[in-house]
């Protein structure tokens, strides 16, 4: 269970460029740190992010060990019609974390 915070405008006018923001709680353990016993802490990071509007991918990103904990992404899209935005992160373990938001576009 991960908490995810999204920022999506409640509504937009058709043609508007809107900003989308997404943050997920994740340690992004780099695999380069050691614990107080000197043992390496195993890597566990998110490796991939994708944002879809209905079924179309509008943004995606690969993550690497240098990405900070609790990564925040900001990106833009042009609002054209109402639909559902899906924000999806994939962990190296294959586990997927998803949250959706509705976007209402006024004519």
């Amino acid at each position: 269970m991960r908490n995810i915070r999204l920022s999506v405008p409640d509504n937009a006018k058709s043609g508007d460029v809107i900003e989308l923001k997404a943050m997920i709680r994740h340690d992004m353990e780099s695999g380069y740190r050691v614990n107080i016993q000197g043992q390496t802490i195993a890597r566990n990071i998110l490796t991939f992010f994708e944002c879809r509007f209905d079924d179309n991918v509008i943004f995606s990103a690969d993550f690497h060990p240098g990405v900070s904990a609790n990564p925040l992404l900001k990106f833009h899209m042009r609002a054209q019609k109402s639909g559902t935005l899906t924000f999806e992160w994939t962990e190296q373990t294959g586990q997927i974390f998803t949250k959706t938001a509705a976007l209402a576009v006024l004519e």
Partner: protein
Amino acid sequence: MIRAFGIIGIALLAGCSEKPVDEAAFGIAPENIRSGYEFLTAETQALQNDDFANPGLLWVQTGQGLFQDGGCAACHNDPGTEFRSVASTFPALDPQSGKLINLEGRINLCRTRHQSLPELPYESDDLLALTTFVKSRARGGTIDYQITDALQPHFAAGQNYFYSKRGQFNLSCNQCHDENAGAKMRGDTVSQGHINGFPAYRNDWQTLGSSHRRFEACDIAVRADPPALGSQTYLDLEVYLTARGNGLTSESPAIRR
């Protein structure tokens, strides 16, 4: 020298009944009190100012979920508007046991006394989240923490800890946070060491932590053997530092380097 007067001031005051916090007990004049926020770079300040980008709000979100689903909202209003003054009222003495409790301790008392649940361990994720949620309700308020007669011994013990040299480096808290605030230390700028931002998200920790974790980090930095988080020593120190920050704005969850 100033410090010596401070300690005498406290000793004298301990004799009378009604007293405001004695200004001489602090190494910084009230008009010069500055939040750790003011010692941050513009970029780190921007992160704290942005109510979306501040990762501390992830803990507020988790805490609110625990508050609603964990039975707290059965007795307390949701979303916790009644907690608006907690930054000025804790640490406090629990009337039932007479023990000094901070916000973490208060939440654990609610669990053990009112919910028959076990205490959450200090610095555990759930306790941090609940504490940050409750404390976030006080965000933006001015801290006005009164040292009552009953709190006086705790205040004095905390002050004593703040002025005692310790560790292999033989440094006391005030040597850095009163006498060298604003100076550079390695890549960092030393602040006045206030706790108005805690629980706070530290970029260095890549996570959120309590004021006690910060005390521990400073104790370890001078190579002292730190007391346990939640210990009486750190609770007393929290009393002293809360009063020392009177007049500051409560910023939790703040962002710190």
